[in-house]
């Protein structure tokens, strides 16, 4: 996903920072890998149709308005 990377960043102002690779919280780390697995499981569940429908309707309404 754009803008979200598990990379090491230098600790400078204005530069985004993530857990360092050796950190147990980094994606390959002991805890990081399990936290990721926890979310990955939920992320694989289907998005409820209601939410998709809502988004389609909002988009459609906006198109109609712009005509």
């Amino acid at each position: 996903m754009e803008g979200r990377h598990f990379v090491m960043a230098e600790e400078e102002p204005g530069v985004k920072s993530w857990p360092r690779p050796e950190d147990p919280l980094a994606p390959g780390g002991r805890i990081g890998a399990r936290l990721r697995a926890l979310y990955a499981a939920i992320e694989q569940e289907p998005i409820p149709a209601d939410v998709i429908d809502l988004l389609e309707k909002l988009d459609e309404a906006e198109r109609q308005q712009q005509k």
Partner: protein
Amino acid sequence: MTDPSPSFKKAMLAALPSLRAFAMSLTGRPDRADDLVQETVMRAWTKQESFQPGTNMDAWLFTILRNNFYSQMRKRGREVQDTDGAFTASLGVAPPQDGVMDLSDLKAALAKLPPDQREAILLIGASGFSYEEAAEICGCAVGTIKSRVNRARNRLQEILSVSGASDYGPEPKSRPALSRAFAG
């Protein structure tokens, strides 16, 4: 030049799975997580002019969802204390199968953390945000996020090393079997 809405819709669709996982960790209940996501989609759409193209849409959506969740909590008052209970109640699920990582220890350990620390470590370790993005989402200083994450990480390590044996990494092929990780 062109109508910006198709890409806005597309970006929102792409963000929904991770947004929903975050909602699950806040509410601990699939029905309330889905309501929260739905409300977030609605709000985000009505204020899409306030989204700056080129900035991180995920962080923007997470902020809206989080603000919405906490303002609901404040209105309902009593349920604030219930958040921990709900998170814990969603734990007793998905008995591990052969070769499947048992995440129940991790979930039990997460449930023991103070909500602000749990939120911080999930935003960084599970959602994959930078410390700066997590600070933006929570409306606090980067140093605050780092210190919450540190405390959460230490506490998790403590709890998990005590609970011991089932401490191994994930096997990607086994993930579908975990598909009800938070759901109860």
